[in-house]
C-alpha cells in the first residue's frame, strides 16, 4: 500500500476543507435544536383554544384573509406544520409572482377560523445568521455549491483517513491513547480513535449535506423533467387571467393521493408549480413517508386533477437526505447524540489541524510517523 500517496490525499483534502467544516460543525450545533430554541426563546404564537374536532375553514377564506392583510401582494405558498404550529397556516406572499424567490412576506392564519393571527417580520437574529452561514455563507447558490464541494472533500478525507488507520494501528490495540509521551502523540491517538468511531456518522452527515446543497439543481431538473411531462398539454397556452378555488384543489388532491397530510400548496406560476396549476404537496405520517412529498397538479381554472405522480428517485434522495443530515427524526435523545457526535467531529478536525500545525516536518517523516504508529515522533520528544 502506498502510505505516502494516501497521506498526501488525507493531508490536502483535510487542509482545504477543515476551516469550513469547523464552521459548519459549530453553526450546525444550534441548528440541531432550532425547533426547541424557537420554542423557548421565540415569541410563541399559539392559536386560540377551541374544541379539538373544530373543522378546518374553507381554504379560499384563508387565502382571502391573507390578501386582505396584504392587499398589494400575491400568494405564493401555503405551508402546514401541525407538529410545531398546530392549527396555523403559514401564507407566504410576495409583491409579484415573478419577484425574487427569497422575497417572502409571511401571514399566519388560523386554519379553523380563517382569522389572521400574526404577520411575523422576516427572519433575523442569531439563528438566522447561523442558518445562513451553514447553508451558503450569505453567498447564495455559489456559496451553497462551494460548501457542497467542501463536503465532498470531507468524505475523501475520511476515506483516506481510514486507509491510514491500518498502518498506524499495526502494533497498537484499539482505543489506545498514549497520554504521557508527548502532546503530539496524545492528540494523534485521539484523532485516530475519535475519527474511527465517528466514521459512518460523519460520512452520512457529510454526504447528505452535500446532497442538500444540490436542492436548487434538483428542483430545476424536476421542473424540466417530471413537471414538464405532467403539464405537457399546457405548454403553449398563455397563463390564465383568473384562477379558481384553492379549496377545490385541496379536495381534489386529497381524493387522488394516498398520503393525506397537507404540507404545502404552491400557487400557479411559482417555483414549485406550473403557470396553470395549483401544486398540492401531500405527505404520509411515518418518519419516511412524512419526508416523501407527493405533488398533485390541479388545473387552477377548472379545478380538475391534471396528474399526480410519485417523485423521481433524485428528488426522493434529496428528501431522505434531509433528516439524515438534520438528525431531527428520532426525538430529543437523537438530537443530543447528534450534538455529541458533532462535538467529537470538531475534536477530530481540531486535532487534525493541531497535528498539521504542530511541528515543521517533512512528508517522509510524517509517513514514517503513520507507519510506526506514532512512535517516531514520541522517541524524539
Amino acid at each position, binding site marked *: 500500500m502506498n502510505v505516502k500517496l494516501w497521506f498526501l490525499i488525507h493531508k490536502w483534502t483535510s487542509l482545504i476543507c477543515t476551516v469550513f467544516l469547523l464552521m459548519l460543525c459549530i453553526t450546525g450545533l444550534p441548528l440541531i435544536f432550532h425547533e426547541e430554541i424557537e420554542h423557548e426563546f421565540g415569541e410563541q404564537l399559539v392559536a386560540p383554544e377551541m374544541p379539538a374536532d373544530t373543522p378546518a375553514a374553507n381554504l379560499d377564506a384563508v387565502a382571502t384573509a391573507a390578501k386582505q392583510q396584504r392587499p398589494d401582494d400575491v400568494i405564493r405558498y401555503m405551508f402546514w406544520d401541525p407538529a410545531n404550529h398546530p392549527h396555523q397556516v403559514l401564507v407566504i406572499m410576495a409583491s409579484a409572482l415573478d419577484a425574487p424567490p427569497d422575497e417572502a412576506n409571511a401571514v399566519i392564519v388560523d386554519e379553523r377560523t380563517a382569522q389572521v393571527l400574526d404577520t411575523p417580520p422576516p427572519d433575523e437574529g442569531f439563528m438566522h445568521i447561523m442558518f445562513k452561514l451553514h447553508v451558503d455563507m450569505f453567498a447564495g447558490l455559489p456559496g451553497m455549491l462551494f460548501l457542497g464541494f467542501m463536503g465532498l472533500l470531507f468524505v475523501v478525507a475520511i476515506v483516506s483517513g481510514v486507509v491510514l488507520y491500518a498502518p498506524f494501528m499495526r502494533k497498537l490495540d484499539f*482505543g489506545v491513547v498514549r497520554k504521557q509521551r508527548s502532546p503530539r502523540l496524545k492528540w494523534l491517538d485521539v484523532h485516530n480513535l475519535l475519527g474511527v468511531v465517528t466514521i459512518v456518522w460523519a460520512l452520512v452527515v457529510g454526504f447528505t449535506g452535500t446532497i442538500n446543497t444540490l436542492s436548487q439543481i434538483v428542483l430545476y431538473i424536476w421542473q424540466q423533467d417530471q413537471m414538464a411531462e405532467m403539464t405537457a398539454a399546457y405548454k403553449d397556452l398563455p397563463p390564465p387571467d383568473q384562477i379558481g378555488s384553492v379549496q377545490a384543489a385541496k379536495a381534489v388532491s386529497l381524493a387522488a393521493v394516498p398520503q393525506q397530510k397537507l404540507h404545502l400548496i404552491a400557487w400557479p406560476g411559482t417555483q414549485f408549480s406550473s403557470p396553470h396549476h395549483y401544486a398540492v404537496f401531500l405527505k404520509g405520517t411515518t418518519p419516511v413517508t412524512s419526508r416523501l412529498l407527493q405533488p398533485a397538479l390541479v388545473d387552477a381554472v377548472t379545478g380538475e386533477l391534471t396528474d399526480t405522480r410519485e417523485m423521481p428517485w433524485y428528488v426522493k434522495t434529496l428528501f431522505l437526505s434531509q433528516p439524515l443530515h438534520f438528525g431531527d427524526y428520532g426525538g430529543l*435523545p437523537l438530537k443530543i447524540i447528534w450534538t455529541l457526535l458533532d462535538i467529537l467531529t470538531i475534536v477530530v478536525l481540531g486535532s487534525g489541524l493541531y497535528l498539521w500545525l504542530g511541528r515543521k516536518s517533512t512528508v517522509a517523516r510524517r509517513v514514517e510517523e503513520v507507519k510506526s504508529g506514532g512512535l517516531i515522533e514520541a522517541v524524539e520528544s
Partner: protein
Amino acid sequence: MKVERRTLWQIFRVPLVLGLLSLLGLISALVGDGGYDVLSWVTLGTPLAVGGWYWLRRQARSGR
C-alpha cells in the same frame, strides 16, 4: 520491544462493529417511531460511548 503485527481483521473489527451499529441506528429511526427510535439511540450512542470512554479514561498502565 517486540510487538506482533496485527492483521487487518484485528485492526478493523471494532471499528466495523461500531460502523454497522451506527448504520443500523441511522436507518432504524427513519423506519419507525417508538422502539425504532430507542434502537437508534442505543446503536448510535455506542460508538459515542466507546470513543468517550477510551479517550477520557485514566490510563491503567503507562503507554507502550
